[in-house]
């Protein structure tokens, strides 16, 4: 049952175009883009808990792209693509940096790393989103959050 519902979520989402935004590396602009995506999620009835989660993960991914990926170089751009439905939110964030291998990052929850001031962003993204996928180069992350509280759409049962 759950599998068929998830299949349906995928099918519906695939019918929609992605919204695409490109901007020069700026934390202020990144914040505005984040707010725009959150507003779309609110319009699509994600609850407060999901909004908290998406906001947290988006902030981490956007700051990573501007600060660590593009090194705050305003000549480099960040590309954000998103697609929000009542069932799911998908956001892809790509920078023009060299990329990285997320597997090589030290575990920030290990006792010896607890006092380190950085390195928790990806842990938080993975904890709060349904799915987090990096491209092989490591300069693009795609975040997905399923809206588990979404009431079944009446037509969804058909077919």
């Amino acid at each position, binding site marked *: 049952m759950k599998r068929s519902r998830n299949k349906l979520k995928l099918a519906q989402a695939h019918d929609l175009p992605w919204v695409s935004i490109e901007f020069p590396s700026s934390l202020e602009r990144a*914040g505005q883009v984040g707010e725009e995506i959150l507003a779309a999620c609110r319009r699509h009835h994600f609850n407060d*808990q999901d909004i908290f989660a998406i906001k*947290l993960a988006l902030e*981490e991914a956007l700051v990573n792209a501007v600060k660590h990926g593009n090194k705050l170089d305003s000549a480099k751009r960040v590309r954000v693509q998103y697609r929000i439905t009542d069932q799911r939110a998908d956001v892809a964030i790509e920078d023009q940096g060299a990329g990285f291998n997320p597997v090589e990052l030290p575990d920030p929850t290990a006792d010896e790393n*607890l006092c380190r*001031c950085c390195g*928790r962003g990806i842990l938080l993204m993975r*904890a709060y989103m349904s799915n987090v996928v990096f491209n092989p180069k490591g300069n693009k992350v795609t975040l997905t959050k399923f809206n588990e509280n979404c009431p079944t759409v009446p037509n969804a049962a058909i077919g």
Partner: protein
Amino acid sequence: MAQEPSRLKVTKVGETVQVEFTSRKILDEANIAEIGEQLNAIVEKEDRPRMIISFAAVDHLSSAALGTLITINNKVKQKSGQLRLSDINPQIYEVFNITKLNKLFRIYSTMKEAHESLPSV
């Protein structure tokens, strides 16, 4: 030139410095840098800092904010001081739990409990 309003409310109670955030969001990068500087200045001023940071007004944070808190914690420890956190709402506490920083920081439900946990001067 008008001065920017402080992001922190700082009160001295005996030997203890109580800090409360005046901004609900402490995730914004500019806010974090400013908050970090203000907290740092407080710690620098004290010989053995005794500080309680209340999260009563905070409803969101980020890994950068956590990083700032860790830096302050490290400084307080270097000066053989004491740091307590209080009034963290369940949603924010979950962030501390996921990152296991609830093991690093001493967290109390209320400011009163945090005060009581401090060793007497």
